[in-house]
């Protein structure tokens, strides 16, 4: 029988994530400008999407930006926000018969400091995706480790670990991350540690429950009876059979970590300026919402795309993996919903 292919939902989810990863990887090539570049900030700030400005380079000063340029006599007249400015044609270095050819197009507009939103978005996706992926990997490792220890470590270890997990789960996730972020003022590496280090508790509970169930299955009992050590049974028999919820959780968790990172950065406790991340870009746009909606709108769409991609992938994976396990050793269908509910957090 041919293996069923991934359901369309999972494929589109994986497609979205791969696309975002590709954008992030090639950001320096794709970005039209340096994300930190501020050229003639007074003129270039809060320009709407698709608009463009002429760049006038002169001998004696910084390049000037203008909405329109016309020639009057021996002068070049620049139409600027602050009014028109006359520059002697002789001083302009990039003027030709066709006029000023050099233009900067702001595909997604510019922010309040005149930086290009598209460039910042692309560079920000590197930061946000890296933190999301690494934090998810950390949470997955920690959750599996603690869950495994609890499942095979005997009553005392189990009780100690699980009561701690219960306690930690009572904290609203964001509140816990906020508390830690406030105390440690994290840089990017510490941020990964913080988000990943506070996101493993639900998974530990899930892994423990799954392993305890598998431990009673015949194949595990047989392996134990044949003299394999508990750790050996765990690694050779139990964990490989628990990959279904682990994979689904990993996929969901990437999205969840990106959400947490963006929320933290939005509150000013995550990625620090001038480094762009989606959350901090939204925060930048908050105070200019009524006059420049694009500053906050586009990075939000990126977050939505990333989280949607990871949910779609998780959704499809759980369908697919449940199908594979059907009729095997009792793999139950677990929707991401059930897993999320079990985790008690997203």
């Amino acid at each position, binding site marked *: 029988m041919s293996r069923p292919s991934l359901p369309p939902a999972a494929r589109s989810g994986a497609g979205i994530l791969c696309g975002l990863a590709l954008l992030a990887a090639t950001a320096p090539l794709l970005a039209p400008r340096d994300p930190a570049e501020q050229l003639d900030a007074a003129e270039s700030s809060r320009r709407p999407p698709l608009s463009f400005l002429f760049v006038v380079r002169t001998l004696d000063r910084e390049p000037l930006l203008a909405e329109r340029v016309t020639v009057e006599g021996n002068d070049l007249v620049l139409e600027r926000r602050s009014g028109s400015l006359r520059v002697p044609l002789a001083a302009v270095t990039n003027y030709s018969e066709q006029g000023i050819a050099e233009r900067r197009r702001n595909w997604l507009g510019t922010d309040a400091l005149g930086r290009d939103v598209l460039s910042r978005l692309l560079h920000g996706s590197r930061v946000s995706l890296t933190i999301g992926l690494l934090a998810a990997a950390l949470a997955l490792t920690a959750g599996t480790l603690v869950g495994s220890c609890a499942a095979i470590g005997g009553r005392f270890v189990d009780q100690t670990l699980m009561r701690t997990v219960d306690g930690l789960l009572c*904290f609203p996730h964001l509140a816990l991350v906020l508390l830690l972020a406030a105390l440690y003022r994290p840089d990017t590496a510490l941020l990964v540690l913080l988000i990943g280090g506070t996101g493993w508790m639900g998974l530990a509970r899930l892994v423990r429950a799954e392993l305890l169930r598998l431990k009673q299955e015949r194949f595990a009992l047989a392996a134990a009876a044949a003299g394999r050590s508990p750790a050996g049974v765990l690694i050779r028999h139990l964990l490989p059979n628990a990959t279904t919820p682990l994979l689904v959780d990993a996929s969901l968790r990437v999205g969840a970590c990106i959400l947490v990172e963006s929320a933290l950065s939005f509150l000013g406790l995550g990625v620090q300026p001038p480094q762009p991340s989606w959350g901090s870009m939204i925060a930048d746009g908050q105070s200019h919402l009524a006059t420049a909606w694009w500053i906050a709108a586009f990075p939000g769409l990126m977050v939505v795309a990333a989280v949607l991609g990871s949910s779609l992938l998780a959704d499809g994976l759980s369908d697919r993996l449940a199908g594979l396990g059907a009729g095997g050793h009792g793999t139950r269908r677990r929707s991401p919903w059930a897993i999320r509910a079990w985790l008690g957090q997203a």
Partner: protein
Amino acid sequence: MIHFLLRRLLAAAVLFLIVLTLAFAVVALAPGDPMAPSDPRIPPEQAERLRALYGLDQPLPAQYLRWLGAVVLRWDWGQSYRTGQPVAELLFDALPPTLLLAGAALLAQYLLGIGLGLLAAFRPNSRLDLSVRVASLLVYALPTFWVGLMAILILAVGLGLAPAGGMTSAAAFELGPVAAALDVLAHLWLPALVLGLSMAGDIARYTRNSLIEFQATEAGRAARARGLSETRILLVHGLAHAAPRLLQLASVSAPLLLSGAVIAEVVFAWPGLGTATLLAIQSGDTPVVLAATAYGAVLVIAASLAADLLLTRLDPRIRVE
């Protein structure tokens, strides 16, 4: 029943102690000294005096016991480093707005979720069903703060359907009780909707799956055999079948709601626990941050306890276990 109640209460109390201990440990083990002089001209004796005033000069275990004793016996969370006000008093003012917001969001998420779930369940695998499924994934992916900003931009600033922030109008103190309540309601609905949105998708999916599952059970087939209408089967019998798990979902969503409330409060300038926490974080006011985090955890414990107790009324089988 009494036995069950006592057991649950005891478990909640133990969890409360664990939560307090964890919160204290996190704060005590963090680097940095809140009493370090911010200016080299401040004499070191001044810092020593402050440390003695706040009990920070004692060994950690002593600090812990003193702090725990004050919290448990007198609900005394210390004093704010910033204003000198008792923390409990400060947070007591911030609690009702947060509870109001979270409660309204809970209501919104259930109304939306159950409504959409019912719609989808009437015609499984129809186009409507599919759209509900996609929509539920989509709303989960929407970051609360971004949706909040966009809602303010489009609904509040653009269309003028709601005030852009705050809990009351500037002139609220002049209004009568009914008008004042309406004023709060006008400020409340948008943040509550935004906050409730992310979980509404999950509830819709759960309701749908549960209702479709119900139709295949004996109870569902019996209801159909008795000639009940489709509407009655789903609305009355189906929802009764789904109710216990839906209720459990409420306790699961409590931490999520509170996390979201922090964000929603900041976006909508809602004067609650979240706004107070953020202000305390920005000003390095550790006792307030610690207490606010613990308050969040206590609310979660209380919510799960309440859901457990309600659940035993809905489903008596749980008590036996």
